[in-house]
């Protein structure tokens, strides 16, 4: 599983790739920790781009739940965007679609973050330095 990040105004997009399972969930948790801390401190938004994630297990879902809780405590936002169809099913079956903010596309997610984040994303400008 791999994680790369881009900044769009007050929003950070973390692009995840691969499987999130019992072997890789701890890796995800470690990768998200600084991003959550930063977004929380700024009361900003962290968008997880799931377009490249083909599977997530219960352990991975738990990492997302803890991340969302941490963001709520700091009045920040966590959004999950662009799920593959199989992952949509896993979110539905686990009912995580009810406790996380899930959007069909990255564009939809950034629209929920802020106008500036959406404008920056749509402008396809260079990534904002963190």
């Amino acid at each position: 599983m791999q994680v790369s990040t881009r900044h769009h105004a007050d929003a950070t997009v973390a692009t995840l790739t691969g499987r999130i399972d019992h072997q890789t969930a701890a890796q995800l948790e470690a990768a998200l920790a600084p991003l959550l801390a930063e977004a929380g401190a700024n009361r900003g938004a962290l968008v997880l781009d799931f377009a490249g994630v083909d599977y997530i297990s219960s352990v991975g879902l738990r990492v997302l739940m803890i991340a969302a809780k941490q963001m709520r405590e700091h009045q920040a936002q966590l959004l999950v965007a662009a799920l593959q169809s199989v992952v949509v099913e896993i979110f539905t079956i686990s009912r995580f679609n009810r406790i996380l903010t899930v959007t069909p596309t990255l564009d939809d997610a950034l629209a929920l973050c802020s106008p500036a984040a959406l404008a920056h994303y749509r402008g396809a400008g260079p990534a904002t330095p963190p």
Partner: protein
Amino acid sequence: MMRARFWGTRGSLPVALTAAGVRHKLLTALRAARGRPLTTEADLERVLAGLPFADAATYGGHGPCVQLETGGFDYFVCDMGSGLRPFGHAAMAQRSGGAGQTFHIFQSHLHWDHIMGLPFFVPAFVPGNRVVIYGSHPGLEAALRRQQEPPSFPVDFSIFGAKLEFVHLEPGRAHQIAGVAVTSMLQRHGGDSYGYRFESQGKVVVYSTDSEHPLEQPEHTQRFVNFFRDADLVIFDGMYSLADAVSVKADWGHSSNIVGVELCQMAGARHLCLFHHEPVFDDAAIDAVLAETRRLEEITRGATRLRVSAAYDGLEIGL
């Protein structure tokens, strides 16, 4: 080990169909029958066969009680929820009420919903019968006596005519009981609970209810994978959705269908049976959980298929 027979499958609190629930099922069946031939019994059966389980039947509402038919003469039972009462009646009828029966009963734990059937267990009133209650809790006998003390119940424990025995099972060790190897294992639940692994004649049944799985602890997961290893049937606490189990109902001591599928897949188990149904759920809700769990198994399947079912009062699973 030949067969598992479910006498009570509901968690926490027994429930019953309401008048409105029965009426809904009848109306659904009548609508399905519109315009179809209804002359013969076979016609009627065809209509019923086309209905979802939730419309044609019910999951039932008795508290946890599962009988394991081992091929031997003695009875094997897991837990004494309210389902123990109909099991006791059936056992009496099966052998014409004859004395001299032995019942081996394995207690997951001592919460009310798992012990409330004992005062209504008719074979325990029959002199000459033997009821052996196994568990790994130190307070096993005291808890069962206490539920029949005033002001909780009007009939004292001493009323039982059968010989009641209490046997402590050391967790993690296989105990040979009437031809069956029985191993208990500590589970995470308020006041502790224990799962049981039954092995006989090359078949394995695991009874694992009232068990929460801390996903952040890989060693816990591995312990359960080992306990479920190559089981022919895993009877599993699938009471909550995963989202509930790790958020608002974290530390409530129960698990989810998703964790059941994952553990069984990792363990190479053959059949997952969802058990200890949420009492809030109606039949349609349990039907939906079953369909979703089967779909999850399908989209996450490895080399072998895991059969998935949802327990209902009256279900029999042959091994």
